[in-house]
């Protein structure tokens, strides 16, 4: 403890050091850019290596997509919420699921007690999706499913419901989070052991490449890694290592990099130093392009695109003086736009202690709309391009992220480090260091450890949990179990097991099971029969 303290004090007298360990000079000049990288790397937007953005005209052609996280309670409530968001100008939906759904359990599982519909929508069968997406133009609205451990079931359900409502799978756009490796680091909704978990991610990538070509089958999340305690460089480095693990596995199936790389997407976090974040995104975008082109020999420029949702991170918000979070989130939105994000989402100001109220969610939406419509943020591409500081820092972030990735490879690779718990352990230690830095005032948070004022303590709040809704959901599940063609269900589950044993791509079998109204829990159980369950290495 004393070691860290003295280091912190020394840093203060010596200079300014970013979380990523990069020292900031008081002044930057054209020489700074040349000393840290090649000016040719800055290039033009829409051209390799895409430092300035993946499209030539960026927001001038189309502003970033606004996609707020929503979904709670029953399918009926979620459906109403979606219609409200669409009517208010939101162009993408981001579906939150409750924990039983996320961990592959049915609503009437004993472990689901008290959790049905609590932190998101509960889904047991295709009937729930039929209700949620009724009357929504799935070929116009992009739908993002925040689902990982049970992703194969929920993606199958989404495709089945789209087909049922007459949409061509080839026209579907949207994203499945489907990034299981980060779940072992943060968020914790893993189900199966690490290797079969990766196999299922790749099954979705492989299936979508041919059947749902416009859909993003995976959104690799640096976000949760950062929220778990990683610094901005580790956030990008670990996410890239994870993405590479999925790519390597997909290539092993005989696919060509250009058949799927353009549909990979990323989800990143924003909090902390303003310029460090912007340089993080610009440097990472360039690095990713180089990795795909140089290491994987992609021929299509689109394969090299780092397409991302970048939103304000909950980790930067405070429970103290929560209205300050409105100001913080506006800066995060500005960072996101100046970094050339494709999609933006913000945490609501009250999210540090509650599920957002309607008013708070609306302020988030308006914050992003103000940026688009009042601030001129969409007028010209990459307005910070050429800034001595930003370009220098971009160079430094690129090389530091690359270096961190080499280190991970040197330690045995990301999959091995996650399976052993070593990455989690390192990140957890950092989270503790950060907390200590906040507690003893080395890391300043306004309203929390400086400019505090006596205020009425705010209670943590939740949407009132509805026992009745949970009962309705369970009753509905039981009715479907009774009414469906049980022979067809059993046959389809047997096929899921068989295909898992034979190491086939599971998407066709799972889609078949979903259409037979097999439940999330039943399909997950069939897969557990073959794969077993993950046993968490216990560490802190």
């Amino acid at each position, binding site marked *: *403890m004393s070691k860290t303290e003295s280091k912190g004090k020394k840093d203060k007298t010596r200079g300014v050091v970013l979380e990523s360990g990069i020292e900031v000079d008081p002044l930057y000049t054209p020489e700074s850019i040349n000393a840290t990288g090649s000016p040719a790397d800055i290039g033009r937007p829409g051209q390799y290596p895409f430092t300035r953005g993946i499209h030539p005209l960026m927001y001038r052609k189309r502003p970033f997509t606004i996609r707020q996280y929503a979904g709670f309670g029953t399918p009926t409530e979620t459906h109403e919420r979606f219609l409200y968001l669409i009517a208010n100008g939101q162009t993408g939906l981001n579906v939150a699921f409750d*924990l*039983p759904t*996320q*961990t592959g*359990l049915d609503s009437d599982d004993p*472990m*689901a*007690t*008290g*959790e049905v519909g*609590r*932190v998101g929508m509960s889904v047991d069968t295709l009937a729930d999706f039929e209700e949620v997406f009724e009357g929504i133009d799935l070929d116009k609205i992009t739908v993002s499913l925040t689902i990982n451990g049970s992703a194969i079931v929920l993606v199958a359900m989404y495709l089945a419901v789209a087909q049922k409502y007459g949409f061509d799978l080839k026209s579907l756009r949207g994203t499945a989070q489907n990034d299981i490796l980060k*779940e072992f680091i*943060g*968020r*914790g*909704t893993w189900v199966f052991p690490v290797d079969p978990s990766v196999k299922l991610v790749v099954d979705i990538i492989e299936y979508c490449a041919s059947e749902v070509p416009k859909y993003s089958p995976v959104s690799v999340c640096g976000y949760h890694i950062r*929220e*778990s*305690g990683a610094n901005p460089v580790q956030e990008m480095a670990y996410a890239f290592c994870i993405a590479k693990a999925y790519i390597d596995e997909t290539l092993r199936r005989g696919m060509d990099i250009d058949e799927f790389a353009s549909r990979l997407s990323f989800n990143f976090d924003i909090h902390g130093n303003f310029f460090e974040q912007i340089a993080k995104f610009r440097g990472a975008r360039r690095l990713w392009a180089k990795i795909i082109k140089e290491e994987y020999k992609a021929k299509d420029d689109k394969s090299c695109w780092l397409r991302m949702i970048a939103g304000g991170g909950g980790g930067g918000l405070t*429970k*103290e003086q929560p209205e300050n979070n409105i100001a913080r989130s506006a800066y995060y939105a500005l960072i996101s736009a100046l970094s050339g994000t494709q999609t933006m989402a913000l945490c609501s100001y009250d999210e*540090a*202690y509650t599920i957002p109220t309607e008013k708070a969610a609306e302020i988030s939406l308006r914050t992003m709309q103000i940026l688009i419509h009042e601030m001129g943020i969409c007028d010209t591409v990459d307005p910070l391009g050429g800034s001595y500081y930003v370009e220098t820092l971009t160079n430094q972030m690129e090389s530091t992220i690359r270096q961190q990735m080499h280190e991970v490879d040197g330690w045995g690779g990301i999959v091995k480090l996650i399976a052993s718990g070593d990455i989690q352990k390192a990140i*957890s*230690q950092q*989270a*503790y260091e950060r*907390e*200590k830095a906040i*507690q003893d005032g080395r890391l300043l948070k306004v309203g929390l450890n400086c400019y505090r004022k006596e205020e009425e*303590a705010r*209670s*943590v*709040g*939740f949407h009132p*949990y509805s026992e009745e809704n949970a009962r309705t959901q369970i009753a509905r599940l039981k009715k479907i179990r009774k009414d469906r063609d049980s022979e067809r269900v059993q046959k389809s589950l047997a096929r899921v097991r068989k295909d898992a044993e034979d190491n086939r791509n599971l998407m066709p079998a799972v889609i078949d099971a979903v259409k037979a109204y097999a439940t999330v829990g039943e399909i997950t159980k069939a897969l557990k029969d073959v794969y077993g369950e993950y046993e*968490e290495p*216990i*560490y*802190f």
Partner: protein
Amino acid sequence: MAEKRFKILLGKPGLDGHDVGVKVLAHALVDNGFDVVYSGLRKPIDRIVGMAVENEVDAIGLSILSGTHLVLCEQMKDEMSKRDLAIPWIVGGNIPDDDVAAIERLGAMAAFPTGTGLDEVVDYFKKLAKEKKRTV
């Protein structure tokens, strides 16, 4: 003979996967001389209490952020009385102020909502250790 150190089991009951806070607390407790056992994620209450018994811990801390605290504390109360145990237990996480009293009525010694300083929780355990005359 060396005195036994105060041992705490930190548990994650239910389906909530948010473990940043509980691990940060584990680090802080170890730094302050406590023995800490961590349950890992998604453990049923009976497993957690079983672990507490096996490890002969002096106290249990439950971390719950998904909002299920009342349901899980109810189960905790039943499990403790079923096994006739008197291990002190506390709860931390996203706990609305209004629920603190309810949690305490269910048998928890204390409930620490989001925003509680690490020191406050560490001090609380120090006080418990002192009462039990254990070293830290």
